């Protein structure tokens, strides 16, 4: 029994009462009352009676008869009892309208109130007793209200209808009363608690009380659970791997000068990857500043080469180096870290977003995650780099077989691409190499550096079963809530 049902049951007596009455007594809205009544009726606690009922009310004409008196009454009143008067004079005296006169005379005679005589060419009306007629009684009974049609005698109602003094309306009448079991159910309800409260616990008032039962059939909305994004979780697992392998995490800014993104990495200023088709540039601000000492060393590396190198042999332009770009490779982060000075042995990784213009489709997007790693130590070699790559391919990427493909990067020599057999397909996993001596000399690093940049998105797609690369950063709520 819910609150509304309890209220309703409390308001009912053993006699039938109309729904309107009950609504007024209980304070329930009619609709709430009806649904509560239906529920209680189903449990046999309430009896509900439904009856079709004809309601009668007065038409505007009937209303005017009720207020001013019927035309026959007014005619006879003008003549007055026991006397007689010429018809025309009487009509005038009674103030009857033209169409009312014959009606008045007809009914005065029918009621036995008047007698009509012909006196030569004149019609003379004489009146007798003026006791109340049944039409008048009915008009009075109805008045300004709507009453049940049963309140008026059937033949009178027919007269009223014929004289167009009344109109009818159908209505369903609902009445209710408490069933025999109702009172007992109510009594039980008094002691039922719907919610345990701190007060009850404090005072012990819960003791001996019954708790309201839940309707287990009620449909409840599932909670929208919180959770972490599947791709970020994937990246988190890779970070754990790298930390467990002894790598230190480093982070870096998304906006870089070309100097940090390219020049430090010994990429010549006319390298195709520096063209507007291959890197995002910024509108405002569009220029950054260059770190004094490092600039001189980098310029030297590009123009002259330094120890044992011919360099790129062109006039290095600081204005080009100062342009701001969105980071296109996390190698920029390695360059920043090396520029701060490192004490070998040193191993770091960076997982970060990079940006490159591209046609956007299911396997290409303009933002992507790169996993950067470097190892700095005396005596490390290219074969050891291949060892690292094999470890990554097998331990992190789950490759069954590993292959090394010759490649080219402006900042590494030797350069190599890592491919791995994942499932039954050979997949490109990323690029690697040993940083070039020109770059290391400019950064003042005196020992070899192994470096790699592995793309995470394609691998994540395969591992997580994502068909479209854009879904990794998608906006669909179902995708976001995917576990």
């Amino acid at each position, binding site marked *: 029994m819910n609150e509304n049902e309890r209220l309703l049951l409390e308001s009912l007596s053993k006699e039938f009462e109309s729904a309107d009455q009950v609504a007024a007594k209980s304070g329930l809205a009619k609709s709430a009352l009806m649904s509560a009544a239906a529920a209680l009726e189903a449990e046999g606690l309430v009896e509900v009676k439904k009856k079709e009922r004809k309601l009668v009310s007065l038409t505007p004409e009937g209303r005017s008869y009720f207020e001013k008196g019927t035309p026959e009454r007014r005619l006879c009143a003008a003549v007055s009892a026991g006397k007689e008067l010429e018809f025309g004079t009487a009509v005038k005296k009674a103030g009857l309208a033209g169409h009312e006169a014959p009606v008045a005379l007809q009914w005065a005679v029918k009621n036995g109130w008047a007698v009509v005589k012909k006196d030569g060419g004149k019609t003379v009306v004489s009146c007798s007793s003026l006791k109340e007629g049944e039409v008048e009684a009915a008009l009075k009974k109805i008045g300004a209200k709507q009453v049940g049609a049963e309140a008026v005698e059937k033949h009178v109602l027919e007269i009223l209808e014929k004289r167009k003094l009344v109109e009818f309306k159908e209505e369903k009448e609902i009445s209710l009363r408490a069933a025999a079991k109702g009172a007992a159910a109510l009594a039980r309800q008094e002691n039922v608690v719907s919610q345990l409260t701190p007060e009850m616990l404090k005072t012990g008032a819960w003791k001996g009380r019954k708790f309201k039962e839940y309707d287990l059939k009620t449909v409840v909305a599932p909670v929208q659970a919180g959770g972490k994004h599947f791709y970020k979780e994937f990246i988190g697992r890779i970070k754990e791997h790298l*930390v467990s392998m002894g790598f230190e995490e480093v982070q870096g800014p998304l906006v870089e000068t070309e100097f940090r993104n390219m020049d430090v990495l010994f990429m010549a200023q006319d390298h195709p990857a520096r063209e507007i088709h291959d890197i995002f540039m910024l509108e405002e601000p569009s220029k950054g500043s260059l770190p004094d000492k490092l600039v001189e060393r980098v310029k030297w590396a590009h123009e002259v080469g330094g120890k044992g190198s011919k*360099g790129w042999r062109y006039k290095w332009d600081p204005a080009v180096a100062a342009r701001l770009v969105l980071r296109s490779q996390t190698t920029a982060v390695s360059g920043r870290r090396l520029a701060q000075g490192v004490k070998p042995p040193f191993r770091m990784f960076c997982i970060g977003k990079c940006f490159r213009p591209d046609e956007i489709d299911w396997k290409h997007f303009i933002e992507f995650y790169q996993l950067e790693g470097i190892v700095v130590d005396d005596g490390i070699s*290219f074969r050891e780099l291949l*060892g690292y790559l094999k470890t990554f391919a097998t331990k992190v990427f789950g490759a069954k077989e590993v292959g090394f493909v010759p490649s*080219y990067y402006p900042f590494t020599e030797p350069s190599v691409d890592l491919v791995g057999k994942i499932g039954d397909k050979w997949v490109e996993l990323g690029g690697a190499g040993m940083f070039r001596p020109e770059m290391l000399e400019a950064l003042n690093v005196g020992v070899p550096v192994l470096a790699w940049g592995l793309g995470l998105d394609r691998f994540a797609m395969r591992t997580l079963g994502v068909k479209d690369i854009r879904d990794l950063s998608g906006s669909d709520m179902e995708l976001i809530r995917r576990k």
Partner: protein
Amino acid sequence: MVSVSFNRSAFERLVGSELSQAQLKELLPRAKCGVDDVNEREVLCEVTGDRPDLLCTEGAARAVKGILGKEKGLPKLVVSPAKTFVKVHENVAAVRPFIFCAYIDGVKITGDEIAELMQVQEKLHLTHGRRRRKVAIGIHDAAKVSAPFSYKAVKGNEMAFIPLGKEEEMTFKDVLEKHEKGRDYAFVFEGVDKYPAVLDAKDRVVSFPPIINAAMTTVTESTKAFFLEITGTDFEACNAAANIICQNYSDKGAKITAVEIRYPDKKVVSPASEPEVMTIGVGEANKLLGTSLKAGEMAEALKKQRLGARVEGDFVACEIPRYRTDFLHPVDLVEEIALGIGYNELGIKEPTVFTKGSRTELSVETDSLRDAMAAAGYAEAATNVLCGEEALKARAGKPIRVKNPVSSEYSFVRNSIVPVLLAVLSKNTRHPYPQKLFEVGEVVERREGSETGTVTKINLCALSAHKDAGLSEIASVLAGVLKGAELKKLPSDQFIPGRCAQVVVGKKVVGVVGELHPEILEAFGIEMPVAAFEVTVGEI
């Protein structure tokens, strides 16, 4: 990487044996030609950016012959002494200073080969030539031009000629304004009022480099000799291009004859084909590779890479053909040794360095915030840093615009996450509410005086959208995840007045919290109240 297609039968003819699909897929990548696809007719490859010589069938075949051991060491290139010259005027120095020429006799060329030659030329122009600015190649029918030649700069309306593909004479200015190639490459001459011209003995225009050749020199199937003309802004790059073309035709049996280039101050023999000499120490190479190779083994590997190599005690002296431009430092020879042996044959060495791993403080904090937000019932989003007009629509200040966006949807670098998550909500209005989202990610703001003129921050942003969403709800989440956060009054048009606040930790303003202004919700098409906060967690 540059995509090229080799004619399979021509390639196999040059290598001197038939090669199966599997063999091609194994051999070509070892020569830095990654194989995309092989079919009956052609081999589709991706060539690395350091090897313009591999953009041609001849070059790739030459490299593969080395790997197979069919032909090793420096490729043979005989260049006969010059019989004629090009006079270079000093006025060309400011426009396009260098020119290289050569005669290539005894070519037999079919229609297919003409098409292939044009493909090679275009690939070289695009990559090695940096869209023709640095290097441009002109190949002419030698029978249709008269030696000696001159190379000079002329005014736009000084001379006229019929360019390739046209039937009427055009001035240089006309070519730049009306010819399709002229319009494509006009950028090369920005801010210049004189243009380079190669003229023959009769003062006829042979070519207007790097735009177009004259129609009269067009190569056809009846052409028996080429006059090669290469111009550009980089002496060595131009010579390398000349050597690539000459070596290709020499490999096919053609005879190369030099041309003397007479600069105002010096004479140069073109092409300059004497190999460059570079030496590598055996110890240095072994140390970098992690190997214990003998000098002889190294020399053998280098020869397979088509370099000349001679053991000299603890050193290997190498001869590098001029069609290669990728040798700056002896370390480049070290890679050639590794390539000659084969990366997969080198064998791996287990890592020997041991260090302690760690996370950055910020990344550890970021993760604990993510845990807290997820536990609070918020779903994590991972949206993009590049965004469209959302920031403006959400009144989130002025994000930095990308100069060259690929589409308007990705034309700004986000400076706040609230707008991006509002965009997520706007795309999910059909899904049931409540919708509670969060993201921890990068935003970029301007910062004058910093090296990058900007600062990259890590922000935490949360949005709650449902019928009762409000400040007190979201503020209690904030209070739960960000200890010590206090709220201070904030005038803002992003939120409902009086129903928003600054978030302050210590004395530092770290973010905002509030109920999104209905005008903003309307702009995003969201018919549900949204409360949000965004706070900065750190800077990177």
